[in-house]
């Protein structure tokens, strides 16, 4: 029998809140392989899922973990896995498979110092572009990031909702600081959490075309075993799901993959603003660094510097319209990151001469502190 956790206050780790958020979003299958600093997600799922009639499997590695997740999702069960950099590299092949077969699933990557085994217990943000471009082929992708325990809960729900709605894998980037920090958090009441489920076919099985286009670009998805003919392949396929080499079908198929995400930009591109209204300079930050930036902006304001913060919750598709509006308004923006400059590249790409883009980078396995960002703001 599942203990009633909703509405109660806990001291939760980011990783634990992620597991709770996943369960609240309807996740009932988890396959994973332990890795610091993501193991607590698996650990909590391993005893929470059986309480809600879900399934937990520890697989032999990360490749099979995502494979199992894709399989479970095809069978109609909301599924996820969680790993860190080295495991995320192994998942890239199956991530592409989930993209082309349009299987909803959530992949959490708790970033640690890299490359390779790197710094298992230290935070970093080095996998941002890997999350965007790690798997091969031209593909759209949704990448979200979290900065606090409460976001670990709420954003994982958003990740599942977007994944189900658009039939895409959603990558959630956390980092060691967010993952291992404990904060007081009240688990929201179940009826206050918006949960989106995939649309299932409403036609008889003999009429069903599993990859047929519609106005949303997202075909209804039948669960395997429900009596609907459903061929799944990593080859580019036609509306029936069988391989095709016809250029007209290939182009229509791939363009639909992009169109369905582009159609949803407004909903998908999530940002949070702090003190932006009258800001003359702004910080663009994500993950745990956004917490430091929040304090740095408050410090700057107390010194009379009109600073603001845009926290990027969605990293990809890059929230261009919000960022560009702030760039128009500010004389300079600062992008602090725990890498050598991955989102600052995106900021520079959309800037097109509107403002000055400064970056601040730290790659020594330590979180960027508020004072460091404040000092950079003073120089601007």
């Amino acid at each position: 029998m599942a203990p009633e956790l909703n509405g109660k206050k806990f001291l939760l780790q980011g990783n634990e809140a992620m597991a709770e958020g996943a369960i609240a979003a309807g996740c009932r299958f988890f396959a994973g392989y332990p890795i610091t600093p993501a193991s607590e997600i698996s650990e909590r799922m391993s005893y929470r899922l059986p309480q809600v009639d879900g399934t937990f499997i520890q697989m032999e590695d990360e490749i099979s973990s995502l494979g199992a997740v894709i399989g479970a999702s095809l069978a109609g069960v909301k599924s996820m896995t969680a790993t860190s950099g080295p495991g995320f590299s192994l998942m890239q092949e199956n991530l592409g498979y989930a993209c082309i077969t349009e299987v909803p699933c959530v992949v959490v990557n708790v970033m640690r110092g890299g490359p390779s085994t790197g710094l298992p217990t230290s935070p970093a943000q080095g996998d941002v572009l890997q999350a965007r471009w790690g798997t091969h082929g031209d593909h759209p992708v949704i990448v979200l990031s979290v900065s606090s325990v409460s976001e670990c809960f709420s954003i994982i729900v958003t990740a599942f909702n977007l994944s189900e709605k658009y039939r895409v894998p959603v990558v959630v980037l956390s980092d060691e600081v967010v993952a291992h920090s404990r904060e007081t958090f009240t688990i929201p009441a179940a009826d206050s959490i918006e949960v989106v489920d995939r649309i299932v076919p409403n036609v008889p099985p003999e009429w069903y075309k599993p990859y047929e286009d519609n106005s949303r670009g997202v075909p209804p998805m039948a669960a395997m075993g429900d009596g609907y003919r459903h061929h799944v392949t990593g080859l580019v396929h036609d509306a029936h799901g069988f391989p095709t080499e016809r250029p007209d079908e290939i182009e229509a198929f791939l363009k639909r993959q992009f169109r369905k995400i582009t159609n949803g930009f407004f909903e998908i591109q999530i940002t949070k603003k702090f003190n932006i209204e009258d800001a003359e300079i702004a910080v663009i930050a994500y993950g745990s660094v956004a917490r430091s930036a929040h304090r740095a902006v408050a410090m700057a304001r107390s010194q009379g510097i009109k600073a603001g913060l845009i926290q990027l919750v969605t990293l990809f598709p890059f929230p261009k319209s919000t960022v560009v509006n702030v760039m128009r308004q500010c004389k300079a923006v600062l992008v602090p990151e725990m890498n050598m400059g991955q989102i600052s590249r995106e900021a520079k790409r959309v800037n097109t001469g509107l403002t000055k883009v400064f970056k601040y980078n730290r790659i020594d396995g330590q979180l960027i502190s508020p004072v460091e960002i404040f000092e950079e703001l003073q120089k601007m």
Partner: protein
Amino acid sequence: MDVDRFEIRLSGSGGQGIILASIILAEAAGIFAGYNVSQTQSYGPEARGGRCKAEVVISSKPIDYPKAVQLDMMLAMNQASCDSYCFDFKANGLLLVDSGLVDQTPTSRVVALPFTKIARESAGRDLAANIVALGALGHFCPLLSRKSLESALSARVPQETKKMNSKALKAGIKAAEKFDMDSLPRSILPEEEEEI
């Protein structure tokens, strides 16, 4: 009590129970005393040994930066961690050390108590030194009551160790009560810089 960022750092060697003590401290403040709390940690890849630190930020307001900025209190359970982590201290910050394991301290506002020895004598095991130290930390922290500490401890530790841990906590509080705070300087600022 209204407070904006009361910050405590606990440090020692991996395996001494530093992180567990910080979790209990955070739960005492966050769950049982109703504050906003952020607890963070940093440790090496070793299973045991190596330096380990954990930080607890307690505030009546929402906490932006989750780690410590300026420490109100710090615990050092060995010399190496005392040497590496004793920074960002407020002038009136208080350092607690295990007097059996730390010989030299970088500040004169120090409460040196033999936590490990007290653990052995009161609970029968060196292992409970973290809980003894937690009792002392709780005593000197103005935001925590004895009751909130006891409730948090009993909710977190395994059933079969509750008795031992409870003894250790009480012994820690008792040792701290005996300490004469008036024997310490109020601040480590030089006299001429002290505000009157």
